[in-house]
């Protein structure tokens, strides 16, 4: 025969266990609801800090060595330097796509900074406010760039042509890698010289 006090303790413990199980299940449900609410509030699109504008990306094609102008609607910042960086980032994103006509891995993070400075040398009366763009590429981008005269030249020329198409005041372009001068991009294209944007002219254009 089980003593009475033991039965009382057993019933109390059983009731306490059931109560704790109920509280735990309730807390779990609340945590689950909180998690779902957090997911719902996560952004599904990149926040647009500026209104979309028409921009031209001059993309290269390895098949025929051409430069093709593509019109895009992109949110662009007002500051010219930041605008140039966003544009070149979008250009490199095109090259990082799986079916790119000019495949180069890395994408937008390959552009570290773009600085716009007054163009050195004698002033041209037609472009008195001409600017020099200094494009600082990342070392990772240069290290992963395919090696070859054509592929490297097309990358350099498409950057120059994209800057010219969107920032007409940029007449000269120089390149740095991780903030330092570098002889070549990936063994071929000369990065020590100043490129004239007038030499980088698209051979055609398409509007996607």
């Amino acid at each position, binding site marked *: 025969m089980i003593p009475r006090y033991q039965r009382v303790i057993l019933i109390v413990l059983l009731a306490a266990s059931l109560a704790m199980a109920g509280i735990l299940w309730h807390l779990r449900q609340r945590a689950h609801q909180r998690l779902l609410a957090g997911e719902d509030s996560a952004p599904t699109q990149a926040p647009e800090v500026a209104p979309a504008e028409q921009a031209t990306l001059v993309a290269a094609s*390895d*098949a*025929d*060595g051409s430069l093709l102008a593509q019109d895009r609607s992109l949110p662009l910042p007002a500051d010219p330097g930041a605008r140039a960086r966003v544009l070149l980032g979008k250009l490199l994103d095109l090259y990082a796509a799986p079916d790119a006509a000019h495949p180069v891995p890395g994408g937008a993070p390959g552009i570290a900074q773009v600085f716009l400075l007054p163009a050195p040398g004698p002033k041209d009366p037609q472009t008195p406010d001409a600017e020099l763009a200094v494009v600082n590429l990342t070392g990772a981008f240069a290290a992963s760039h*395919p*090696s*070859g*005269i*054509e*592929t490297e*030249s097309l990358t350099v020329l498409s950057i120059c042509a994209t800057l010219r198409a969107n920032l007409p005041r940029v007449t000269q372009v120089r390149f740095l890698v991780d903030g330092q001068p570098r*002889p*070549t991009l*990936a*063994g*071929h*294209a*000369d990065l*020590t*010289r100043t*490129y004239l944007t007038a*030499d980088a002219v698209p051979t055609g254009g398409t509007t996607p």
Partner: protein
Amino acid sequence: MRWIERALACAALAALPAAAQQSPAAPSAHFVVVLDAAHGGTDPGGRLAGGQAEKAATLALSVRLRSLLAARGIAVVTTRESDTTLDPNSRAAIANHAKAQVCLSLHVSESGSGVHLFVSSLAPAQSSLFLPWKTAQAALVTRSLALAGALNASLQHAGLNVTLGRTSLPGLDSMTCPAVAVELAPERAQDGTVTAEPDDADYRAKAAAALAAAVLEFRLEPRQP
């Protein structure tokens, strides 16, 4: 009179090597071609799909082309004959000392298709006694474009896809000879599939034969002032 016969015999023996050098296969002293196999030594260049380094593929192409040109009596100077490191200035110095009529910088790439021909992007300039080292090629750009035209015609005649372009290439811009950078890329079908890699012996031989034919054609062209 025996001593006269001995002297004549000695003279004939001494003349034998000279006679051999003047055989039809001997190089001409008037038309010099410089072949610059790009990269080498500690600079491997790019890497082909089969794993071969660009420096090895360019050297193989240079050796092949040198043989074809030498067999046609053209004097050939190569910037390297083995896996040695050479900086762009040394390559230009070798070409300039050779006083060459044709300079070909040989490259190989896995990007693009067919054969890419590049001439210096420097604007044409008047030739003078002293030329700036970094832009010496500017005085020869017009001749370089003519050379690229001859190479283009020959390569297309051989059934190869050719892309022409201008570029700024270290070394090439300092050469004081008609200079073209030749980049051999994979041969591709219309749908983009590779039909021959640059390290394919037959493909390389076909390209080398077309380049040699173009150099022979260019030798016959009247020189511009």
